[in-house]
């Protein structure tokens, strides 16, 4: 008998974040649609909670308080643990985000839960829960058994599809923020600055990433990468060589010490494929490499390759993509 599964959501742009919707899809396929209950905390969470209804979640806990937007994760963990207890839940699922991962870490102690982050799949065999997750930068996959009465899982971004949206209501249950220790309200979030990213989605969210490496040769040539990315509505990334040379800021770096991305498609242009970079993108679903050096290590890990002069092929590719997409 599967107990209720609580999906903890995040608000983004006035509605549920994409990560939250993915978490709902994940929870529904693992626990059955009827067992999934939503949870949302924020300064105004009732309105965005309607998003749960459109995902087919019949009931949602909402905690509303002006202090909740800039609250520390510990506060939400308090609220989630008591909501989960009052529900009799045995599983909490959160989307693939910083918030999600931090929350399950706290629940590991607060709710005595067996926790796992970056989860790509979860299966129930009788009473036992088993998760699969990538490790070593995606170079291996581990399976872990979650032991105990409670489990809290943060899924990997894009591990599941969001459920198809349809009209539907979710019944709201208010959660009180009384009883939170004062010291947890003390830290202050002073502001949020949306980092100017140029055109395109953020590196870690994007389903397509186009990255440029040392083969680009000079800062002014990087516009070829920007144009190719724009034609695909992709995010732009760079190898460490590029950020070290100052051709692009550090937040563009994909790699072991930069961002780890797992898009559907990763296009590596003029990148040799040193392990430092590979560890940032190896778990991409499809990898395309464009490099003039046939012995570049990137060709060992790519799915498709063009041994070509990028200065000739990339503009041609951008043009062909625009034509194919009717731009």
């Amino acid at each position, binding site marked *: 008998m599967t107990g209720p599964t609580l999906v903890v959501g995040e608000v983004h742009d006035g509605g549920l974040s994409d990560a939250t919707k993915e978490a709902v899809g994940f929870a529904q396929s693992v626990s059955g649609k009827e067992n999934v209950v939503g949870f949302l905390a924020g300064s105004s969470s009732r309105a965005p909670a309607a998003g749960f209804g459109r995902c087919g979640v019949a009931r949602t806990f909402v905690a509303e308080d002006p202090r909740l937007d800039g609250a520390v994760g510990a506060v939400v963990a308090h609220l989630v643990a008591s909501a989960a207890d009052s529900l009799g839940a045995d599983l909490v699922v959160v989307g693939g985000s910083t918030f999600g991962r931090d929350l399950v870490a*706290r629940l590991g102690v607060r709710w005595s839960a067996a926790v796992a982050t970056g989860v790509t799949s979860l299966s129930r065999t009788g009473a036992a829960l088993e998760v699969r997750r990538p490790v070593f930068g995606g170079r291996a996959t581990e399976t872990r058994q979650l032991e*105990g009465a409670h489990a809290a899982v943060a899924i990997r971004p894009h591990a599941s599809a969001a459920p198809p949206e349809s009209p539907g209501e979710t019944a709201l249950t208010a959660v009180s923020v009384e009883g939170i220790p004062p010291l947890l309200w003390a830290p202050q979030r002073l502001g949020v600055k949306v980092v100017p990213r140029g055109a395109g989605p953020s590196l870690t969210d994007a389903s397509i990433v186009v990255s440029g490496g040392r083969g680009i040769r000079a800062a002014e040539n990087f516009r070829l990468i920007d144009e190719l990315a724009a034609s695909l509505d992709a995010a732009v990334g760079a190898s460490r060589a590029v950020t070290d040379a100052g051709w692009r800021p550090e937040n563009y770096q994909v790699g072991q010490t930069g961002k780890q991305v797992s898009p559907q498609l990763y296009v590596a242009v003029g990148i040799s494929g040193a392990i430092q970079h590979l560890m940032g993108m190896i778990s991409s679903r499809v990898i395309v490499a464009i490099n003039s050096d046939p012995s570049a290590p990137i060709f060992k890990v790519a799915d498709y390759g063009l*041994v070509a002069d990028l200065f000739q092929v990339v503009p041609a590719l951008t043009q062909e993509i625009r034509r194919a997409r009717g731009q």
Partner: protein
Amino acid sequence: MEIVVCVKPVPDAETRLRTAPDGTTLDIEAVKFVLAGYDESAVEQALLLREANPGSKVHVVSAGPPPRTEEVLRASLALGCDLATWVETPPGVAPDPVSAARALARAVSAVPHDLVLCGKNAGDDEAGVVPGALAELLGVPDFSAVLDLRWDAGAARLRFQRNTEAGVESWEAPLPCVVALQQAWNDPRTAKLPAILKSRRLPIAKVSPEAAAPTVGTTRPTKFELPPPRTGAKLIEFKTPEEAAQKLVKVLKEEAKVFP
């Protein structure tokens, strides 16, 4: 300021991954263990804070099996940490993250700790769970994805930024708290040869882990799988750049099914 840094030994980035004979974990025979990359940044951050706030101390702590845990503590001492404590766990596979957090909490709560610094995650299991669990055990707030960490002694507030999906958040918080740094945004120093030699003779305090391991809220590895070997890229033949572009777009559409 009493700064505690939590570090973990992880397999070197260049390690060839192999499955252990029992199929459950990485084969650690002949694996070279090093200080986790993000932990090097955390140690560097701690040392920079110590330099900016004279009178501060940096205490490095690790929970794990011999001999690799002792080695990363010595590596941290060689970088300049003042004190080291080791919670020794049984040899072999490391404890799961929440169990590691419990062990670390025993060591941390026994020493002065204003600020507890952690790396973003370890390079092996990449769970990123220890900072949150540790903070919950210590009863303090925790902050992840932190950049640009400063101590404002006048206002008695830690000032920092967090790099989250929402954007770059600016924060201030009183001590004590746990901070997990975003990534290697500082340039970790390299330990100098004399410091490496000296670190071998420095004392490492020992704290025993809990007598009975908790039976609730743990996870156990049951399978460790390497992906089927990538056979290498399918190279697309072409005579002109235009032909290359057309063929690639076709393949992405029809074969890979990733064309937007």
